[in-house]
């Protein structure tokens, strides 16, 4: 890994950032979300009226703000990886903490959204649209929590000096996972909140 990074021969492509094991997981997760998205799209095609009606009841603003929050936290994570590649463990830690904090903003907004739906008595069994809306967003929500746990552990390890300019696979691993969570939401938001 480091050998490759230090000899970027022209045209030679690199290995995946981070540990390969996380990538197996990432590809599997993308597969699950992909199937879930398509299930949404094709079920919608059979119940266009229903989906269009109830989509209007979603809080589009909180969805949009959450997109911005996730994009921003992904940017923080990019900066954290850049920092540790320079060997700046302190900067890396700080960027990661910022990323986790943005993640918690996402969680907070999302919880408010769930609470509002819960107060209206909306559950997975209310109708097909809400089944998909709640399933997709809750499944993604759990991924955000998981990502925050991962980034927190990485931040703690960075703080304790476990990473340096040569060896920082752990940071890249956590970063790759977090970007995946971001990538999925970038599709989820327009699909469920906007497209009709």
């Amino acid at each position, binding site marked *: *890994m480091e050998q*490759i990074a230090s000899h970027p021969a022209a045209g030679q492509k690199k*290995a*995946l950032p*981070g*540990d*390969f*094991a*996380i*990538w*197996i*997981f990432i590809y599997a997760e993308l597969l699950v979300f992909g199937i879930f998205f398509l299930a949404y799209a094709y079920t919608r095609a059979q119940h266009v009226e229903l989906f269009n009606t109830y989509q209007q009841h979603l809080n589009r603003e909180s969805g949009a703000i959450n997109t911005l929050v996730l994009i921003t936290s992904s940017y923080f994570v990019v900066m954290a990886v850049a920092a540790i590649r320079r060997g700046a463990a302190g900067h890396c830690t700080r960027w990661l903490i910022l990323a986790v904090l943005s993640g918690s903003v996402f969680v907070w907004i999302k919880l408010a959204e769930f609470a509002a739906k819960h107060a209206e008595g909306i*559950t*997975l*069994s209310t109708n097909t649209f809400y089944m998909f809306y709640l399933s997709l967003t*809750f*499944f993604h929500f*759990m991924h955000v929590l*998981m990502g925050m*746990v*991962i980034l927190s552990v990485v931040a703690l390890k960075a703080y304790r000096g476990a990473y340096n300019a040569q060896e920082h*696979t752990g940071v890249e*691993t956590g970063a790759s996972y977090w970007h995946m969570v971001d990538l999925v939401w970038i599709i989820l938001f327009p699909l469920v909140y906007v497209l009709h």
Partner: protein
Amino acid sequence: MSEVFTKSMARNIYYGGSVFFILLFLALTFDTSSEVPKRDNHEAITEQVALGKKVWEENDCIGCHTLLGEGAYFAPELGNVYKRFGNSTDAIVGFIKSRPVEGIPGRRSMPQFNLSDEELQAVAEFLKYTSEIDTSNWPPNIQG
């Protein structure tokens, strides 16, 4: 060129992934437990139905029949037998009662269980109760 692929990361994914999906499963189970009462026909559960379930279990009916599609595939589905028998518990009682002790030569036959009248009524009521559970329209037709 080869990827970094460590055992410790594989282990983390195994443990992390397991915990993640166990939690998700528990969350869905929690939701299910609050939804099931809307579908499970629990209003129909009486002392008699409870006795019926006991009779059902203590004669191992599931060893030949299916109930809501689960069990053995040797004899007909009974989740909807109440409806198949013309919404009649008497028909169910009559059928169970009339099984020949020595069977039917060359053919499958239900054993004669020598149930009391109370037990017969109870098991029929149990099958009436199961036929009114909301199973999302399963089985596809009355034949089960």
